[in-house]
């Protein structure tokens, strides 16, 4: 049988890949996809621990994380469309007005 730590390591690697993509991609759509990767890594941890502890609550949490991810994707993609309309570009280096 596969021990739980393997699942946790898998989720950790997935999360780090999401963080890396979030930090060094320049395309705002890909940055959003990296956020989805991170959310999935967290969900994976929840499900693995839920199975291991025989508790259903982890799966309920995953359900709510999915709801929040759907809301976030809807609003975020609307923001992307608005940014593209105003700037004609999806490069995050061009959207740095609030940078110090």
């Amino acid at each position: 049988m596969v021990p739980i730590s393997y699942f946790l390591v898998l989720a950790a690697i997935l999360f780090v890949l999401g963080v890396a993509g979030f930090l060094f991609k320049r395309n705002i759509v890909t940055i959003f996809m990296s956020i989805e990767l991170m959310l999935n890594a967290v969900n994976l941890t929840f499900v693995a621990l839920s199975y291991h502890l025989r508790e259903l609550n982890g799966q309920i949490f995953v359900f709510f994380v999915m709801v929040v991810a759907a809301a976030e994707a809807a609003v975020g993609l609307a923001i992307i469309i608005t940014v593209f309309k105003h700037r004609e570009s999806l490069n995050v280096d061009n959207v740095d007005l609030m940078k110090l």
Partner: protein
Amino acid sequence: MNVLPGFFFYLLSAIILGGAILTITRRNAVHSAIWLIVTLLGVAGIYLNQHAEFLAAVQVLVYIGGIMVLFLFVIMLVNLDEAAKQRQFNHQWTIAVGCALALMAELAYFIVKGRESFRFGDTGTGTLNPDAAVIEFLKSCRDIPGLGPGGFLQPNTELIACALYRDYLLPFEIASVLLLVAIVGAVVMAKKEI
């Protein structure tokens, strides 16, 4: 000796990690989205492996069928041709890689340090223990063989429904309000003029 769970775990892990790496390295955003779909399918497979059938179905329906289709629509709406020709990684990629490696080391340290805490009992029998009231309720609805504490309990969807509409009713309603706000916000932002 049953090797199949391990085999499927490694297969799905390879799919997930390969898809994730290709997601963050592909030049073309459409290819990234396709590889992200592969990753999400792998995660759904892990959910099935972990006896979370309802979540696997929701993953395929909501994530792949909903969110990723939304992503692909947005990629088609905006013009990404010149973005694909530009440099893909920004200036601070050395710092970014450093941050990612530091985070990886941190997580590895925690997992190694806390590995004693992960021995919660024998793994892999696949039972979820609901409380007695839920079992009574489910038994009153229909005859489910093997339902009970310690038995092979796999009406996963029914158990989630019970928990969601009984114990987590208020969060469920708040989540629906959140989705409503998100819909209104998305329409307000994406519309030309209100």
